[in-house]
């Protein structure tokens, strides 16, 4: 049964006089893939930052499973089930691909303070990391240092780390940003696969409209930090707000 897992109430943040996210109230249900769209500067990433805790909110609340997590730290929110992939690739550059994923699984297994065991002796952790890498087709590159990876592969690793975390709420911030035309579908297929596997809650910020149309169960539109539209893809895409504010802008961009 689908239930509300994540909820924001009047979530607001101001930077000086500028209101970046303006009283956004929205509920996200389990098993639902919600696409968050809006023109550049609409506050999509900032809204994400407020939910995953990278920036503190000025007003309003974030609730996860009915619990108020507005004041919780980033790591605490992560432990409670909010997982996030970043728009700008954000990895551990001098560590190997495998180590990047291993660290995530190790975090989930709460082994960070294991001081006297050898990290490599924890086979189960390493095996799970390898399985995730198989899934995203990075297994052959597992011993490479991340900084030596192509941009496309780094994006894939970014997704792999979120899959490794397997959080209650997946947050993807433009997972295909900067990827080539042939690489982007790989990442999108991964997200589609995640959605098909079981009822996962996924939040997706994405610009490519065709992608959203096929993937999303629901679309919310942010405009100037405010929630401008919310509903199923067909209705929202046809609405005036999207046609004017978003599609118009998109066309110009292209």
């Amino acid at each position, binding site marked *: 049964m689908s239930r509300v897992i994540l909820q924001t109430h009047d979530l607001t943040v101001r930077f000086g006089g500028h209101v970046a996210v303006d009283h956004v109230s929205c509920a996200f249900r389990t098993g639902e893939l919600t696409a968050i769209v809006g023109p550049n500067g609409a506050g999509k990433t900032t809204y994400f930052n407020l939910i995953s805790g990278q920036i503190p909110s000025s007003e309003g609340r974030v609730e996860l499973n009915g619990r108020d997590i507005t004041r919780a730290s980033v*790591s605490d929110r*992560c432990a409670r089930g909010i997982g996030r992939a970043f728009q700008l690739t954000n990895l551990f*550059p001098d560590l190997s691909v495998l180590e990047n994923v291993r660290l995530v699984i190790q975090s989930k297994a709460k082994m960070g303070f*294991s001081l006297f*065991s*050898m*990290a490599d002796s924890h086979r189960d952790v390493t095996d799970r990391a390898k399985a995730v890498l198989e899934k995203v087709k990075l297994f052959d590159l597992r011993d490479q240092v991340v900084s030596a990876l192509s941009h496309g592969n780094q994006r894939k690793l970014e997704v792999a780390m979120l899959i490794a975390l397997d959080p209650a709420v997946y947050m993807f911030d433009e997972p295909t940003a900067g990827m080539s035309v042939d690489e982007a579908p790989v990442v999108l297929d991964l997200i589609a696969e995640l959605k098909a596997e079981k009822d996962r809650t996924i939040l997706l910020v994405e610009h490519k409209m065709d992608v959203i149309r096929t993937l999303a169960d629901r679309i919310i539109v942010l405009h100037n930090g405010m929630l401008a539209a919310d509903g199923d893809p067909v209705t929202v895409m046809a609405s005036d707000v999207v046609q004017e504010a978003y599609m118009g802008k998109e066309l110009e961009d292209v």
Partner: protein
Amino acid sequence: MIVKLLSGDMPRSKLLSAILLAILICLAFAPFIFPGVRSLDTAARICVFILLVASYDLMLGYGGIVSFAHTMFFGMGAYGVALACTYMERGFGALIVGAGAGALLAAVVAFLIGLFSLRVRAIFFAMITLAVASAVAVLVSQLSGLTGGEDGLNYKIPRELTPAFKFGSEFLGVKLNGKLLNYYVVFFGAFLLFLLLLRIVNSPFGRVLQAIRENDFRAEAVGYRVINYRTAATCISAAVAALAGALYAIWLRYVGPDTALSFEIMVDILLMVVIGGMGTMYGAVIGAVLFVVAQNYLQELMSVASAAVEGIPLLPDLLSADRWLLWLGLLFVLSVYFFPSGVVGRLRQGK
């Protein structure tokens, strides 16, 4: 077995393995290979500094935390032993209590500094450590009633660790006395603690530290509370540094601000870490050996060289033994220039 002992962190370079093995053999059999008083003293100093530098590397090379208080922690261990030996009954109990108290104090102080300043930016932590270290150094030299002030403390360690204690006549031409035992206390103490550090940096905890060094923002986002890990690393590092200080105090039977607290030692530690190679642990070994040997023998080498070129203008002056610091400095500049990732980093990549 060896893999386990080294925690799976192999030297990954034939030359480096050979060098490390040679150093280990030289240190393990130092009393027999280099029987002189001075050379044994150098060997003991190398053992202590390997441990001290390795503990600093845990913080700087693995955790990415810059601290200027490492000598202070070193001094806490040294003064711990000195005070315990001065005010307690002579015996091994005093050594253990002194070393333990020093390590505990170091860990507590590190915890407090970490708690208040690691939350904010790295530079702030560096400045706080500098301030606290200076304050402690001044305090120690002012509290002369307790610490002996600038003169330091001379104290008695258990008789079994002094030259007066003899347990046999001679073995391979080496007198079997307490000094020999004392050396092995220092050697094995440093060796075991070094292996412990090697284990810690290769543990899940060590991996988290590296992740934090690489990208603390992301480490937090995958669920690691960065401040807790940084604070823990600082405490462990401080405690081990204090134990290194305790070994040093046991060896020297003297503690003073110059030997255990001066800022010069801090600079030396930094140089040793950088020369050896940050974030490698083995770099501490290479850095400490190079540095301590240079510090002890460069002067002599130069007076020999100076005598050899006598008669040629300018050269004898340049090579005069008084200029040894100049050459030491030059060596550092060159080594940092040519091996930016340290000797170990260079050996590992250069094939």
